[in-house]
């Protein structure tokens, strides 16, 4: 079953500039898909639509279907709960004075009882390997720690779909490796938009190549990324790991 489905989604920015043109994509349950493309291709805009952040706009056409339910302005609250969105800059997402409050933000909004919230916070922090960070303030964390607290805040909402916007752009190699390991181990359906093609090829089974707000190619990650002409035409490069693969697997 398709956990996530986008049908002919078009959207223009408030200034009238088209951002997405008839984008269609899908993800089956438990799948990890990648969205790649040059800067300004519309990746972030597409991700915001998946969570219903840009809803009911006149300039929006097409459908986003989450777990069988089309996203409308009346079921946004459920959609927010089903789709967890990790933003590019962790400082945008960590808006609470302590780590505990931040991780608890979602569960509090969804009205869980306090004891349950404590348990969820503890478990989410353990899941990302940050036990005992509850009373730290976000400003005093390293980039990797911030990104993992963000992820804990999303896992605390127990979403069926995880949408990650450039999850590794501010991480050092170790932070990146740990985050990749974390993402790989999650059971949810995952959508990753990134310029980090090595990460995408490592984690994602299928990718969508976006340029100028359109899907220009889609298919298995290795297949798309190995097409050097296609990659160069859209501001990307064939990942090194694909250059050095043994010819006889």
């Amino acid at each position, binding site marked *: 079953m398709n956990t996530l489905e986008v049908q002919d989604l078009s959207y223009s920015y408030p200034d009238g500039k088209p951002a997405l043109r008839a984008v269609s994509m899908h993800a089956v349950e438990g799948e990890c898909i990648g969205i790649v493309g040059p800067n300004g291709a519309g990746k972030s805009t597409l991700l915001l639509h998946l969570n219903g*952040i840009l809803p009911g706009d006149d300039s929006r056409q097409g459908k986003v279907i989450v777990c069988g339910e089309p996203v409308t302005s009346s079921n946004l609250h459920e959609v927010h709960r089903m789709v967890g969105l990790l933003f590019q800059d962790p400082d945008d997402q960590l*808006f609470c*004075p302590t780590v505990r409050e931040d991780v608890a933000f979602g569960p509090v909004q969804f009205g869980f009882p306090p004891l349950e919230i404590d348990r969820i916070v503890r478990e989410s922090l353990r899941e990302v390997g940050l036990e005992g960070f509850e009373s730290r303030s*976000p400003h*005093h964390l390293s980039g990797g720690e911030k990104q993992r607290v963000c992820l804990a805040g999303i896992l605390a909402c127990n979403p069926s779909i995880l949408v990650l916007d450039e999850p590794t752009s501010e991480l050092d190699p170790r932070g990146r490796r740990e985050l990749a390991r974390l993402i790989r181990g999650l059971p949810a359906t995952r959508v990753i938009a990134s310029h980090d093609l090595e990460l995408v090829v490592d984690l994602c089974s299928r990718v969508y190549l976006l340029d100028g707000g359109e899907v220009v190619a889609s298919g298995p990650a290795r297949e798309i990324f190995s097409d050097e002409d296609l990659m160069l035409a859209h501001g990307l490069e064939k990942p090194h790991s694909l250059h050095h693969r043994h010819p006889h697997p």
Partner: protein
Amino acid sequence: MKHDYIDRYARLDSPVHRLPAALKLALALALVISTVIVPMSAPLYFVACALFLVCVIFLGRLPLRFVAVRLLTLEPLVAGVAILALMQHDGLLMLIRILVRSNLCLLAMVLLSNTTPFAGILDVLRSLRVPSLLVTVLALMYRYVFLLIDQSERMSRARASRTFAPRRGSRWKTAAGIVGQLFVRSTERAERIYAAMTARGWR
């Protein structure tokens, strides 16, 4: 960059730090209000207040130098009002009154913010049924004021590194530019934060 000079010592461990946040907040507020109300004809009150605050500094293991510097950075505001008072009849007396009262109040606040983590103060406000919107705004302010300071420092450093022939006029111009840029960036960030809040169920 670490900008914790607003509440650098809030997370120390001392008898004062261990007191409940509610008690400290209540004491500080009571002290501020009574300092404003009590007439100057009762000098003993002000001496007692000052002694009490000094005791808090020592019990709280706060470095004297740090407290003095914090107080001095807030002083220009006080001095501005105090000097205006000089123009009036009985100006000198008025100046002394203003200086004593406002310094006691400021000292109380500096001590409160450096013996109590801000999150603790917010918890107290929440349990006092202060409107949640107000508490949220305070929490966001505390969270992002550091980021704003970081950002403005990075920007002025970047400008400085490309300023070759500083002239007085151009310095004001670049300062104005930085303020404008900060405003634009903050507005954009506010929009992203709001999106992040909505994404996790805020309404």
